[in-house]
């Protein structure tokens, strides 16, 4: 009995020692960061630029390199994201080789989990990772920037001399002229369709409204889902809603919600939701969509269970020969949502987003700052932008030479570029415009609409109510 107890006690002491060791480690990291940072005077250009190259270090201890880790939260997980992950991995490797002692600690989290659950909680608690995937807009980058959680990148951009290289895409990451995040690339949202299925049923490409509706009806009659969709995360069906609003109410409506010039419960916006509800009623979308994930949508489309899907242009790389959608490689085409009858505004306008990018914690020590600078230098370079375009089909967020863009050979990606080129205007996604509470309300209400628990008018009224409250609070 006695023996047993002693061993239990010993075990518990050992356990707490392990635990203490763990916590202690962490303290070491933090502790080491502040007082001894100046010691680290690293030979790399970017690090010494942080100006604290202390003379003492260079005098006595030349080869002493302090090891440190920098946490990096990314969303490039799973098969479809593998091209983007490869680019990130190369940037990480390059940056680690440039900054002595640096080790990135990568943490891959599913996109919407990061954006809507993890990051908000960490921002509230003030302990975000040092480098993290960040979306632009009032609900994300701008909100966190105003609360002082994000690193002001303006001096770094000036130092690296890359600010002017960005296209006009930094607004949604900026507050009062200061830049707090950098979009990795851009995308537009439109219709992917399965050309094999379309020719099988003698359908025209869905470039006009009538052809689109006819295609959808024909597919539905043949027990093929017209539009694959996975609405468990409501951001997915919200893509189509956004473009429908842009078509029916005009492209100016979307920025207008926040300024008060457009209303969610205006007849136009309600008509867009009505259109969506009608399609829902006609069975245009995947059955059981509210239980389907975003990944299921691609699977259904690749398996030929669905003829079309409304998705972001980033998906084009999934249909390469060595990607998840290889089964239908070469049988996919991309078009913009066609002009809506009686729609307002420019009917050739397409949605264009430069929303997804990286942000950086405001709480960095000198070492971490050096790492962040090197990361930005390597990630936002001509080389990586071109690789993003060619390997992953992401539209560049920085200027690329015409010669570079001419290297695009992938036919699907060319179609995406053509759609953008022929667009009269572009409009943003409302998720980067409206306040986060409004955006989450659009998700809640859209799912209710899909479930048949709310009418388009009720949806519009409910969202506008939150919009009014948020607009009033902003004043």
């Amino acid at each position: 009995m006695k023996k047993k107890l002693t061993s239990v006690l010993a075990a518990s002491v050992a356990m707490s020692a392990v635990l203490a060791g763990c916590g202690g480690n962490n303290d070491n990291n933090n502790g080491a960061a502040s007082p001894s940072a100046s010691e680290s005077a690293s030979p790399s250009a970017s690090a010494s630029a942080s100006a604290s190259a202390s003379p003492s270090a260079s005098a006595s201890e030349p080869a002493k390199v302090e090891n440190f880790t920098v946490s990096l939260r990314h969303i490039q997980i799973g098969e479809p994201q593998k091209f983007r992950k490869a680019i990130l991995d190369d940037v990480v490797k390059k940056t680690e080789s440039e900054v002595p002692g640096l080790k990135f600690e990568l943490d891959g989290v599913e996109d919407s989990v990061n954006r809507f659950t993890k990051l908000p909680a960490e921002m509230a608690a003030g302990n975000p990772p040092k480098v993290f995937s960040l979306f632009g807009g009032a609900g994300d980058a701008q909100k966190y920037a105003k609360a002082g959680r994000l690193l002001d990148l303006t001096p770094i951009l000036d130092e690296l001399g890359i600010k002017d290289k960005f296209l006009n895409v930094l607004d949604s990451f900026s507050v009062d002229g200061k830049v707090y995040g950098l979009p990795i690339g851009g995308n537009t949202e439109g219709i992917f369709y399965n050309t094999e299925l379309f020719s099988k049923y003698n359908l025209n490409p869905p470039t006009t409204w009538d052809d689109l509706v006819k295609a959808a009806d024909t597919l539905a009659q043949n027990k093929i889902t017209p539009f694959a969709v996975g609405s468990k995360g409501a951001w997915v069906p919200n893509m189509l809603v956004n473009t429908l609003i842009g078509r029916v109410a005009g492209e100016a409506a979307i920025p207008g919600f926040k300024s008060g010039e457009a209303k969610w419960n205006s007849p136009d916006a309600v008509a867009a939701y009505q259109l969506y509800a009608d399609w829902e009623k006609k069975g245009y979308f995947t059955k059981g969509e509210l239980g389907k994930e975003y990944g299921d949508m691609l699977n259904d489309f690749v398996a030929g269970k669905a003829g079309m899907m409304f998705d972001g242009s980033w998906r084009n790389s999934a249909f390469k020969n060595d990607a998840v959608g290889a089964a239908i490689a070469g049988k996919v085409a991309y078009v913009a949502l066609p002009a809506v009858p009686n729609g307002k505004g420019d009917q050739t306008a397409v949605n264009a987003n430069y929303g997804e990018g990286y942000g950086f914690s405001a709480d960095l020590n000198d070492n971490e700052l050096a790492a962040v600078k090197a990361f930005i230098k390597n990630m936002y370079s001509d080389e990586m932008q071109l690789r993003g375009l060619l390997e992953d089909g992401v539209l560049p967020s920085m200027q690329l030479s015409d010669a570079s863009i001419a290297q695009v050979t992938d036919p699907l990606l060319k179609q995406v570029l053509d759609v953008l080129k022929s667009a009269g205007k572009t409009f943003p996604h409302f998720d980067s415009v409206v306040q986060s509470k409004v955006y989450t309300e659009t998700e809640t209400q859209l799912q209710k609409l899909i479930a048949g628990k709310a009418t388009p008018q009720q949806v519009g009224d409910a969202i506008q109510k939150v919009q009014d409250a948020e607009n009033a609070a902003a004043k």
Partner: protein
Amino acid sequence: MKTTLKNPYVYMLFVAPTVAMYFLFFIYPTITSFVFGFTDWDGLNARQFIGLDNFVNAFKDAEFRSSIWNNLIILLFSCCIQVPLIIVFSLLISNVKRFQGFYKTTVFMPSILSTSIIGILWGYIYDPDVGLLNNFLNLFGIDPIYWLAEPKWAMFSILLTNAWQWMGFYIVLILAAILGIPKDIDEAAMIDGATGVQRAWYLTVPLIRPIINVVIMLSIAGALRVVDIVLVMTGGGPAGSTEVMASYMVNKAIKYGDYGYGSALSIIIFVIALILTALYQLLIARRQERIEY
């Protein structure tokens, strides 16, 4: 003896760590919950005192009301459907000699597994295309049911999984009580010619009454605690149809950044728990002896 066991310093040594932890992780958070609950705190900006607004809003909030309702459904399902089934199954197991140990071990097994992993597992059972359940129903010619995707099925699916996980636990609890009943009572009744069902209903059930009350109490507490399974399986969806109070509180706080409102909701959940405990004490446990200090 008197001096040793009255030494206040030793007493302090024994009690202080527990009391300190208790204050830090129970009393202090309870106080801060109350403080946060009266503010509009969003986790990012300074918080402002807004009086009772959060509480007023909570009762106007249709989503929150429906989450209370969902908790109530879970509670009623556990007490009115699960508990009778649990009693029946315990009686069944108590009546067999062979395989008794096997049945006991097997039905108990799910209750030691992590709820979140059970949530993942059942997510696949419910999958409309590859899932076991639809494939099974398909054998009888039943069309695919979108278990977790349709509001009318989703709550039922959660209830089923929850029952799958916990019923065995309660069965073993009651079984232990049944097996603890002296054999001679049962044998006497058998000689009097009472059938198995009669003996179960008139003899065994009244004798295990106290433990049934415990099971009811644990079911009530369990119904209020349900949150992991909802977060893992549906996240409260589709369209809020499986949202329970705790998951709604977590979502409001974390996703919407409404920490003030979330704290107010947590206070309301606490009050509801207190009311249910009081009701239980008054209505069910009234006659039962309680552990008194």
